[in-house]
């Protein structure tokens, strides 16, 4: 009996057990500390919908062996370009949101190709190179946001100056366009069905893709690149495709995030956006070499759970905002933990 | 065995150095009180003249407020000194050559130094006292 418990713990993995218990305990304490469970659950659900897609975007690259995508910012920036252009065009509502996606996809493909070719050149050091490529692109875009010819008054600096504001509200355009769709309330919990449906749709697309021929080849490339190449698979092409898909999903992911959050954040905002998404994926049980859609779902739920619960519950207990510190420790601790797991001995 | 002795002594030297740095680096306040004092019925005061109180190498100017307009009636002046042992020398501004009185004092680690200028000038020996460092809000 004893070792079967240990076995199951090993299978689930210590981090998920610890964080899971931590989260459960917060839900239990919440009512005693005057935090309404209903609002916190709906808060977690809402945050789940607009972060889930970003975490999902990491999946293809992990499966193809490119490792954790520390350069997620490239996909995010293509999404931002889409969002900003869609607001420039000025069409509101769901159509505006679709236009934003439509505009960001070509950018995502372009950035994805360049980024993928570079990663293929630096096999083995993908993650550290990706980190700084991501930072450089974000700081490069800082200049671009000032120079790009956008005129819409909602976006440029107040008195008719040039260059985009750091945060642009999507209130008038496609705010909560997904979340409010078919949303309903039961027992004080607001359920953003639109957001869930969209996230489920994206997961379905990814799941189906990995059942396709290329998808299978991509999984094999990640599992054993030499095996794949000896079966006639062009390993570099598979890695490139996985980077492009990741960038596209990331672009869509940031758009979903913005419609949920309500603001487009430019300039330095996306600088550290890769880390929470990666931490969530790892929290879901993924490793540097292997990840599944289940990891995405569990991880996002646990991670967002902590982010929403700690400020309300913990702060009430010790009367100070410790949640930011906890978020840093949990998020980065997860990534360091995953990076120190030896890759399974090969053969 | 010889190695261990050297290793421990090296650490000990570092710790001692740290403590010394603490002592000689500690910053204290020095408060100079120059209000008039009364000792068994006789009044003493520094009058209107400008006195220079030289603490180590730092010269502090002390003068009783003459003009009626200045509201501040405080007769205190504070400055910062570093380390335990200090020298004090007082002379009038217009006659720097003649030192009225010269002396030394030392301040403990957790205290500030307090000098009563008038009693110092008049040769009494209760011119120096120490006050525990207290952090005001």
């Amino acid at each position, binding site marked *: 009996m004893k070792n079967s418990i240990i076995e199951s713990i090993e299978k689930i993995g210590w981090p998920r057990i610890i964080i899971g218990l931590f989260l459960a305990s917060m839900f239990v304490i919440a009512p005693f500390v005057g935090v309404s469970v209903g609002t916190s659950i709906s808060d977690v659900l809402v945050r789940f919908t607009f972060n889930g897609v970003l975490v999902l975007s990491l999946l293809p690259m992990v499966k193809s062996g490119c490792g954790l995508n520390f350069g997620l910012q490239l996909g995010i920036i293509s999404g931002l370009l889409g969002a900003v252009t869609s607001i420039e065009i000025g069409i509101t509502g769901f159509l505006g949101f679709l236009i934003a996606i439509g505009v960001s996809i070509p950018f995502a493909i372009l950035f994805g190709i360049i980024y993928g070719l570079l990663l293929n050149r630096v096999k083995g050091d993908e993650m550290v*190179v990706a980190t700084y490529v991501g930072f*450089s692109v974000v700081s490069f875009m800082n200049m671009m946001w000032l120079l790009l010819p956008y005129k819409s008054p909602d976006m440029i600096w107040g008195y008719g100056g040039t260059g985009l504001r750091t945060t642009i509200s999507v209130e008038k355009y496609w705010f909560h366009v997904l979340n409010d769709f078919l949303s309903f309330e039961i027992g004080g919990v607001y359920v953003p069905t639109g957001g869930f449906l969209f996230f489920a749709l994206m997961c379905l697309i990814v799941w189906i893709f990995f059942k396709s021929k290329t998808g299978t080849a991509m999984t094999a490339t990640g599992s054993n690149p030499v095996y794949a190449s000896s079966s006639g698979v062009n390993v570099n092409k598979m890695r490139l495709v996985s980077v492009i898909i990741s960038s596209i999903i990331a672009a869509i992911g940031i758009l979903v995030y913005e419609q949920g959050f309500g603001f487009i954040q430019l300039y330095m905002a996306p600088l550290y956006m890769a880390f929470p998404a990666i931490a969530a994926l790892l929290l879901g049980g993924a490793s540097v070499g292997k990840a599944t859609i289940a990891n995405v779902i569990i991880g996002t739920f646990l991670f967002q759970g902590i982010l929403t619960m700690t400020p309300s519950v913990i702060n009430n207990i010790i009367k100070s905002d410790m949640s930011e510190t906890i978020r840093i420790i949990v998020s980065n601790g997860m990534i360091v933990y995953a*990076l120190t797991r030896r890759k399974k001995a090969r053969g | 065995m010889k190695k261990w002795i050297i290793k421990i002594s090296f650490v000990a030297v570092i710790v001692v*150095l740290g403590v010394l*740095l603490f002592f000689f*680096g500690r910053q204290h306040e020095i408060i100079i009180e120059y209000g008039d004092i009364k000792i068994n019925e006789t009044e003493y005061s520094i009058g209107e003249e400008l006195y220079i109180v030289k603490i180590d190498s730092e010269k502090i100017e002390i003068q009783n407020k003459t003009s009626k307009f200045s509201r501040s009636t405080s007769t205190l002046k504070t400055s910062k000194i570093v380390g335990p042992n200090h020298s004090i020398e007082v002379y009038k501004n217009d006659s720097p050559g003649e030192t009225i009185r010269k002396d030394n004092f030392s301040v403990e680690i957790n205290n500030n130094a307090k000098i009563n200028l008038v009693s110092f000038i008049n040769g009494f020996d209760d011119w120096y006292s120490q006050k525990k460092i207290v*952090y005001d809000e």
Partner: protein
Amino acid sequence: MSMSNSEKVKKFLINNTVPILFVVLLFFAIPLSGFSPEYLANEMITRLGRNSFLVLALLIPVMAGMGMNFGIVLGAMAGEIGLIFITDWGVVGINGVFLAMIISTPIAIILGFVAGLILNAAKGREMVTGFMLGFFMNGVYQLFVLYGMGNIIPINNPKILLPRGYGIRNAIDLVNIRQAFDSFIKLKIGDISIPVFSFIIIAILCIFIVWFRKTKLGQDMRAVGQDNDIAAASGIAVKRTRILSIVISTVLACYGQIIFLQNIGTMNTYNSHEQVGTFAVAAILIGGASVAKANISNVFIGVVLFHMTFIVSPRAGKELVGQAQIGEHFRVFVSYAVIAISLALYAWRRQAAKNREIKAVLDEQNEAIENRGGSQ
């Protein structure tokens, strides 16, 4: 087989592409920025005094094959904890700075040891793990400083505590040790002031590094840096050696941060150490260092070029495009981009080396064909 001059020049150019690029860039940017030479000279000297120590801390892990140690952020945090204590105790001047170093040394050693263990566990991806470890430790640092100090750890000077009674304020004025090193022995030539004492300290560190390279431990590190397995086969304790290289680097970074903050005079407790890793690595890479090979000259050239760009680019940006902000963003972009380029180049060259071996075999075939006069 000595290389002919043209080959030597070619090799020099290849190894120093990045510094040459920056010299050219500055060649245009400096006149554009319109700064006076004296001003620039003065700035360079202060910044050399302020940053060199920190950048030098990167040398030893490179020698031991650990690549760019982004984990020196841990050392910076240890230094800051030291400064917090001496500000609380009111110890000032040179004594205060040295006391801060003494207090923070054990903390830096422990943090360095922990970082060494973690980096050993993440063999092959030390740099990104070091980078993430910096962020993680920042959380632990906040837990310790923002919540620990004041209640668990006695801090009695209210000026540095938060109004709520515990946790250190975000910005601390280090007036009691400001310029303590720099003004200790100050030389003024014309209107350029040279902090002689700081440069003496830096010189001492350089001597230590040169001296260290000659020791057995230094040789072991060079061996481990070349090939872990061969070093282990010869009996060198590889894991211990790597940890020692990280511990030394963390302790040096701790002193470097103290010197840096003493020069600046104020410390923002929670983010003055965040960019330490990136700027130090950017500087040494601009100086021509690579992830596998770095020496003292890379450090000084790098600091000058990096900071010259840092000062000049906002004004140059303003002249060029009419917006100072462009220049600001440009200099941040430059520091990230140079790291990205150098890391990519390093990994690229490593892969190219493997292909060269394969090509060598196939070339052998051509020779065989020539001297055999075509196949049978």
